[in-house]
């Protein structure tokens, strides 16, 4: 009858040390499997969908204040904004007229060159919900997800240029890695001389690097870097960054080039997610060239050199 019972004062169950060992092993295993294999992608997606209501609740007070603020805008500020927009519209209208002309001309030239024509790029307007919680990474979460047919790898832009790329898609949200993130790289071209390079995020301050370029490279301060489009992800010609400084060091065979992103990666609420350009013309051109090369490898040099100077 008199059963010996441990007082409630003591902690029941396995000792903290046993628990520690178990959970440490478990998290190490999880980390390894998450970084090396992509088994956990489905699990993560499911769990993120499960937490979505929580995120919605946390986001709602900010949304409310935003809405209220945007409701109580003064008439004067609206008037000013309309004035500015009208002027901008006028300038852009003029530019657009010449653009139509150029487009027709380009199409004609492309038909002459027997390359595929550029299709119109469609896009979706997304709103940035919050910036990532990790000061190490430059990521933002936007309010479109798998239900809006967003795919990982789509390019994200604003009116001034490239912001980054969709890296993870959840059911109602998706994660956009900014171009200043250490892990993101974008193939670019110098607008002035069509020199190709790859831009890497710096990760530290709001800037990007162009490593692995020789010390005597023809890049100057103020050069505009635009997407080259050869990756098949970013459509060609989008502004990426403006060169801030070019340093050459005797110790290093490479130039240290720092550029500042053209788009406001820090101060935006709305961004455009470009629909994956499956018939990206430059990528198609390259494929075509490669296919042709496989057939007659003798003409290789000539064709490649033509492609290098052709599409900008």
């Amino acid at each position: 009858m008199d059963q010996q019972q441990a007082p409630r004062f003591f902690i029941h169950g396995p000792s903290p040390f046993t628990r520690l060992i178990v959970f440490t092993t478990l998290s190490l295993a999880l980390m390894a499997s998450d970084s090396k294999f992509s088994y956990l992608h489905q699990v993560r997606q499911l769990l993120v969908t499960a937490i979505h209501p929580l995120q919605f609740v946390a986001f709602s007070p900010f949304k409310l204040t935003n809405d209220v603020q945007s409701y109580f805008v003064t008439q004067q500020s609206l008037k000013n904004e309309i004035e500015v927009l009208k002027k901008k519209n006028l300038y852009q209208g003029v530019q657009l007229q010449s653009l139509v002309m150029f487009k027709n001309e380009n199409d004609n030239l492309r038909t002459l060159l027997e390359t595929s024509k550029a299709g119109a790029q469609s896009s979706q307007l997304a709103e940035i919900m919050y910036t990532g919680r990790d000061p190490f990474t430059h990521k933002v979460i936007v309010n479109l997800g798998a239900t809006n047919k967003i795919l990982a790898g789509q390019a994200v832009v604003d009116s001034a240029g490239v912001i980054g790329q969709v890296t993870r898609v959840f059911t109602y949200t998706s994660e956009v890695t900014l171009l200043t993130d250490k892990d993101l790289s974008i193939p670019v071209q110098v607008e002035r001389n069509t020199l190709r390079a790859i831009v890497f995020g710096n990760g530290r301050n709001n800037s990007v690097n162009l490593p692995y370029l020789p010390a005597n490279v023809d890049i100057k301060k103020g050069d505009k870097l635009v997407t080259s489009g050869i990756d098949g992800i970013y459509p060609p010609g989008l502004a990426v960054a403006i060169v801030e400084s070019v340093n050459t060091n005797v110790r290093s065979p490479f130039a240290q080039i720092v550029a500042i992103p053209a788009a406001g990666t820090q101060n935006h609420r709305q961004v455009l997610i470009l629909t994956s350009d499956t018939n990206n013309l430059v990528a198609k051109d390259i494929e075509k060239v490669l296919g042709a090369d496989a057939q007659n490898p003798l003409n290789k040099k000539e064709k490649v050199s033509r492609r290098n100077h052709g599409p900008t």
Partner: protein
Amino acid sequence: MLKIRSTKKKKSQEETMDQHSRRRVYFSLLAALLLQLLPFSGLLLQIKPDFLLLALLFWLLRAPQVCNVGIAWTAGIMMDLVSGDLFGQNALAYALTAFLAVMYQRRLILFTVLQQSAYVFLLLLVNQAILLMLKSFSGAEYFGWVYFMPSFTGILLWYAVLHSRYSFNFMAHK
């Protein structure tokens, strides 16, 4: 017979008490997670204390039979999910920190608020240091001392809350 009944009653009472505090712990952890989820940005994001870890440490020291290393690990997994980190990064850091908290729990509850705060500050720093180490394995960079800012704000919050609570209790007793 009577004795048995009384012990049974006591046990059930204890169980309901336990359940009650269990619910309270889970609820407060959920609230802390919500605070953690608030869409801060810029400077506010940099100085934002780790609310979830603070709540965890609070319960680890006060209700170690409810809040244990396993709960800390689960909370860490939640943090991994919402921050989009590698699975298990925050979980490992939280579990290790929780273990360090539980190890000296008996002694800590006898300490004054100030002494406790000092230890909790150490724990917060340890948590961030572990995270820093794990993240640098996957190629992150160190930004200087600003990285440890959440520990400083966290301990200020901890001290402010506990101090106000104690003074409040003291006043109520008077």
